[in-house]
């Protein structure tokens, strides 16, 4: 009897501990489903007739589809380039214990992003690259490339070396064995790094705030601009925020196991 009681108590506690994380997201979705008037009503309305009007307005008035595409393109490019450059680098660091490169990555992680902003702003203005996909992708690489290397080193270190040796005996060149044997062995790691890198690029606000323009504006800047159009459009913010957070949440859900593993391994090693 006491055992069941304790179990019930445990679950009550578990639910209580899950309320804060969930509540904010519920409120976000509710805000997006309410009309402008309902959103400034007091007391706040918990039960109401939902409307999809805000989602329609976000796409039609604010041209949100364009911003979603911009974010998708930039995050996709940054992630793709990070993998191409980062995978061989991480493999080499894991295999030959190249600590000096690790130091460079640490510097990249510790430097405040604002420090990159001024030099890049000046360089891009000089080259006429402000408001281009190239400019934004380059700055996002500052975040995603070190992240991919940092995560992948631990995955390569955890890989058995024998398989690779076997491939070499079978007459593969080292490059072939890397591409055909090694990379498929760490495909979980690659998927995890790719998704984490995508999420960080998708969420990136500061670089886009200064270096993007009307053509390349990404979703975090677009939703932020909802509050600077004079009157704050809470309903629009709710709808836009829901649209931005949704893909990230879905991604995160799929790699939830390795996200924690990746963060922990990285944190423990350094």
């Amino acid at each position, binding site marked *: 009897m006491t055992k069941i009681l304790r179990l019930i108590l445990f679950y009550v506690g578990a639910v209580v501990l899950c309320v804060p*994380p969930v509540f904010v997201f519920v409120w976000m979705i509710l805000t997006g489903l309410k009309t402008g008037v309902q959103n400034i009503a007091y007391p706040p309305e918990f039960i109401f007739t939902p409307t999809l009007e805000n989602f329609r307005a976000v796409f039609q008035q604010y041209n949100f589809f364009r911003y979603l595409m911009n974010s998708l393109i930039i995050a996709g490019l940054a992630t793709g380039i990070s993998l191409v450059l980062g995978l061989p*680098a991480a493999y080499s660091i894991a*295999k030959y214990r190249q600590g000096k490169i690790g130091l460079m990555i640490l510097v990249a992680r510790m430097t405040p992003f*604002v420090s990159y902003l*001024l030099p890049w702003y*000046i360089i891009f203005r000089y080259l006429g690259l402000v408001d281009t996909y190239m400019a934004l992708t380059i700055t996002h690489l500052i975040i995603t490339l070190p992240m991919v290397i940092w995560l992948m080193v631990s995955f390569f270190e955890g890989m058995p070396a024998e398989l690779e040796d076997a491939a070499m005996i079978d007459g593969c060149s080292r490059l072939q064995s890397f591409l055909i044997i090694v990379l498929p062995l760490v495909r979980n790691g690659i998927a995890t790094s790719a998704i984490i890198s995508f999420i960080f690029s998708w969420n990136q*606000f500061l670089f886009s705030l200064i270096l993007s323009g009307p053509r390349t504006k990404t979703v975090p800047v677009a939703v932020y601009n909802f509050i600077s159009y004079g009157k704050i459009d809470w309903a629009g913010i709710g709808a836009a925020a829901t649209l931005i957070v949704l893909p990230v949440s879905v991604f995160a859900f799929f790699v*939830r*196991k390795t996200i924690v593993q990746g963060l922990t391994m990285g944190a*423990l090693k350094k």
Partner: protein
Amino acid sequence: MTRTETAVLKTAFRALTHFIDRRQAFAYPAPAVVTLFLIVIIPIAFNLYLAFTKWTIGLGEPRFIGLGNFIELLSDERVLNGVKVMVYFSGLSLSLEMVLGLLIAVYFNREFKGSEVVQAIYILPFAATPVAVALIWRIMLNPEIGVLNYLLQSVGLPGSLWVSSPKTVIPALVMVDVWKWTPMITLIVLAGLKSLPHEPYEAAQIDGASALQIFWYITLPLIRPVLIAAMMLRSLDNLKEFDMLYTITQGGPGIASETLYLYSYNVGFSFFKAGYGSALMVVVFLIVLVFNVVMNRLRLRAESL
């Protein structure tokens, strides 16, 4: 393409793959290292150079003034304010996140149905786009129509001015930061707890130790390296918190929540003082560096115990 051209290309390709094979330790990291050098090291060097110049963006050329900016910032009241806000905000949020993260991890450290659901829920806050959730918090924190004051008042508690008053703005922002990042600490510590050895616990149970004693004398010392590592990971971003502060308060009311980092942004991009702003950014970098060096020492000591 003629046949000779194809042959030349083939030979060149073979030579290249051969080179990559022979000099693997050099060829594999080289593209990433070159890229990092171009996108990370050069801008940092440029930023460092600007820190020793006086320059307003759009007005003339940078003029070298030696340590002028660093002397100026010593008597800048907003720098002092920025450091105070930074210490207050980071000190409070980091310690709360560590303590709560550890306690919640200990609570969930058992086999139970639904642990996967908890894990999925706990990933949401830190994976979600900071600007988007910060805007939602801004709605919820509204003193007049916000849902937080409504909930407080409906259980008989007084409402708060939250981010609208200089007195409560930092605790309110700490609350948002704690909401967003405690789940990450929880998940990291939880993974650490799961990998702890069983023997000390079995021995303690035989000796009849209480749950509190087990936590204090066994769990805490064993988990300390993970805790410190998680804190270092967290501090890298916490000391440079930008999105949330910029979205919710922009440093206000007045300058009550303007961290040194936010001030350096304002100097550079609102006042366009590139030289002075760069000097402030260098100071922020040094603070992050010193904090991490100290934490790393602590971690190495905790591991060697």
